[in-house]
């Protein structure tokens, strides 16, 4: 496929260009045991990882497709490339990167971000494998490990094996099983005891081969009393046929530690984004998911927190924006296993132009998790009358001494609100964008500034042509 200059100017999808598809041409389509063995062999992995992959592949075959959620019948597993190698070795510095890849990231603003020392390290995922990776020296001195997952398996095999697959087992669900079988790339973070990483660790991911599945695997371990904020941002170019993104993110938050994980997902609107994200919180630990879903054709993603230790806390802030042809099926899960655990979920969704935004959540309080508390707040905003908003919460309480609450509202932008703003001289589309920004403000304010700006920009782009 040649560079399409006409795609560069597309207004509705800013990052919708694509680079020459050279790496993907040789990749096989479809999956079988040989493909799984081949991936493991190419990566020169230890035997246990191959076994794990094969177990994942076995589960993938046995597990049924979900009987709930979005329509996934458009996924053709036989027409997906499960592994694509972009360059043979990892680049050591920016200049080592191939020019087309550099161009891609220039447009995403990575070098600027790094020059500004805003990010602690950049793991740029390009065609399944990390090609660029740099960690600031002071982090290394603190003992923080921030690597792509493949390298981490090579360089830190013990710690890797100790935690890999402990939060999300190979047979957790069909897509986690698939990820276990064919995973490639992703980030590995280890923060030692007591270390507080002051600046966010940031990674950009990018699908860049037609029909290529991206199966990154992220593993974050925050040792006792540590803190880290990890940021994942996704943008993908527009392609002619559907792509699959099926990541697995496992996070271990040890006693007294705190992890914040921020995602602004903006896959192009042909991507099936089916992601399993789960954290386990030990005593007094805090896990915060900040989850923005703007892009993709279909997203099914419910970041979970297992509150396994006393006084553990889980929080999810979720914002979903469903435009034309999109189904955002997002939400959160909180599993209270220990006493005095608390959790909160705030979900905001906006549907427009025929899009569908669903909140789907689950709260479980196990027997013995007394004095646990949870609140769920879902607000949906409909800006027209052809879009759809759903709420599917589920609450399962098995303990008397708890407090659970769920509330949801669905509202539409009222004529009065618009009239009020217009009477102050704002054009209708700006007024609409302002109302939407106000609606998601509780989540935007939790984002680092550059992300909040990006989110606002994305919302504006989405709202273009929303009125009139």
């Amino acid at each position, binding site marked *: 496929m040649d560079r399409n200059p006409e795609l560069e100017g597309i207004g509705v999808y800013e990052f919708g260009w694509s680079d020459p598809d050279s790496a993907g041409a040789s990749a096989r389509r479809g999956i079988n045991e040989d493909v799984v063995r081949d991936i493991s062999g190419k990566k020169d992995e230890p035997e246990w990882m191959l076994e794990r992959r094969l177990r994942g592949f076995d589960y993938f075959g046995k597990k049924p497709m979900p009987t709930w959620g979005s329509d996934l*019948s458009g996924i053709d597993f036989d027409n997906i490339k499960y592994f694509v190698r972009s360059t043979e070795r990892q680049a050591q510095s920016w200049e080592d990167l191939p020019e087309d890849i550099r161009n891609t990231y220039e447009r995403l603003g990575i070098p600027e971000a790094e020059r500004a020392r805003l990010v602690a390290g950049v793991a740029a995922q390009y065609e399944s494998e990390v090609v660029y990776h740099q960690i600031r020296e002071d982090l290394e001195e603190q003992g923080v490990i921030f690597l792509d997952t493949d390298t981490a398996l090579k360089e830190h095999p013990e710690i890797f094996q100790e935690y890999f697959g402990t939060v999300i087992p190979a047979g957790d669900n069909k897509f986690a099983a698939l990820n276990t079988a064919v995973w490639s790339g992703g980030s590995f973070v280890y923060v030692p005891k007591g270390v507080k990483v002051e600046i966010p660790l940031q990674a950009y991911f990018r699908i860049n081969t037609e029909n290529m599945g991206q199966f990154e695997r992220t593993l974050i371990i925050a040792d006792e009393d540590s803190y880290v904020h990890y940021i994942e941002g996704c943008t993908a170019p527009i392609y002619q046929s559907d792509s699959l993104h099926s990541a697995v993110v496992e996070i271990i938050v040890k006693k007294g530690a705190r992890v914040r994980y921020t995602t602004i997902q903006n896959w192009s609107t042909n991507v099936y984004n089916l992601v399993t994200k789960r954290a386990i919180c030990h005593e007094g630990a805090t896990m915060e998911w900040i989850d923005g879903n703007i892009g993709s054709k279909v997203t099914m993603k419910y970041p979970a927190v297992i509150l396994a230790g006393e006084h553990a806390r889980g929080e999810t802030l979720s914002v979903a924006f469903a435009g034309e042809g999109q189904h955002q099926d997002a939400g959160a899960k909180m599993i209270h296993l220990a006493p005095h655990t608390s959790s909160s979920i705030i979900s905001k969704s906006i549907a427009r132009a025929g899009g569908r935004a669903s909140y789907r959540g689950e709260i479980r309080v196990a027997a013995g998790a007394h004095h646990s508390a949870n609140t769920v707040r879902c607000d949906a905003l409909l800006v027209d009358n052809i879009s759809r908003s759903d709420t599917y919460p589920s609450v399962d309480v098995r303990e008397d001494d708890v407090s659970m609450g769920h509330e949801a509202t669905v509202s539409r932008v009222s004529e009065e609100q618009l009239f009020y703003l217009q009477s102050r001289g704002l054009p209708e589309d700006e007024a609409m964008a302002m109302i939407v920004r106000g609606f998601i403000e509780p989540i935007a304010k939790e984002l680092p500034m550059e992300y909040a700006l990006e989110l606002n920009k994305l919302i504006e782009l989405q709202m273009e042509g929303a009125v009139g």
Partner: protein
Amino acid sequence: MAGTLNEHSHGLAPVQMRSERKRSADLAEFDAITMRDEQWRYVEVSRLKGLDNLPMDEFSGDIELEAPEAVSASWIDRDHALFGSAGLPEDRAAAAAWGAASQAYLISIPDNFVGDQPVYLTLRGDHLEASALHLVISAGKFAEATVVIDHVGKAVLGENVEIILADEAKVKVVSVQDWSRDSVHVSAQYSKLGRNASLEHVVVTLGGDLVRITPTVDFAAPGASVDLQGAYFATAGQHLEHRPFVDHSQPNCKSNVTYKGALQGNKAHTIWVGDVLIRKAAEGTDTYELNRNLILTDGARADSVPNLEIETGEIEGAGHASASGRFDDEQLFYLQARGIPELEARRLVVRGFLNEVIQRIGVEDLEARLTASIEEELARSIA
């Protein structure tokens, strides 16, 4: 919430909207019940005691009707125009009961009827073999009435209840499940509302080993309103499940759903799944659903799922809430501060909690009986 897969143009896809769920009177259309199916995910099939299969006997217990003279009752055949006019089964147990009932018991309330006495139907079961019953309640134009269905005694009963309200009818239907502890009851209660009709549907479930009530509401014309109220009290080992569904397919209709439950004892399990669908045509809809659960002891489990599917932004309002928890400490403190001992205070809180629904029945003797029954259970736990 989707639970099954539908044939799709290119493969199998989950049901994407509550209204797409299969509706059929034919048992063969439904797969065997498993916990993999969202609709049955909480039910151990063995506890249904045969209610999921044919053949099944017809209900042979007492059917006793006390009603004002103008209200008529009769058995109608399956080819009667009213049979199946309010809805069709959405699950296998309802389809089995539908197939097993050769006739339906029709209670007919004439046009313009206004009654000050309730239409009181007592269904008294006397054995624990699976049996089926089909009821049809039909209210004419401008009719105003209260209909009570009081389920007592012991039974393994598969039931379909059809409630048809003509234009402008204003009807309250009360379904009381006050069974023996070993009874099993699945009841699909379909209602269809005419223009500007108003239905108050009150469900009170106390007895039984497994009780599963699935009220569905269809609007045949604009301007109608429905108020679904429920109260349930599950004690050790009981499985009480309620799944109301309001399908807003017409403009300017209102719905309110309020279910409140209390649980005490090991393996007391309540399930509440409330579905509200607002279709594209249902502009001007106003809806709210609420489920509250009070868990009184350890070992009990309350599942609460208020689902909301909305296809149009042109609505008056839509919301839902679910809360599960323990006693309100503040209320308790307030009562104790006034010299009321803690146990008594707890009793008062629970009574007040459930009475909000029970007093909606409006039939004094029945309200008193149900309140006494709840108090008795509470006293047992407190002692």
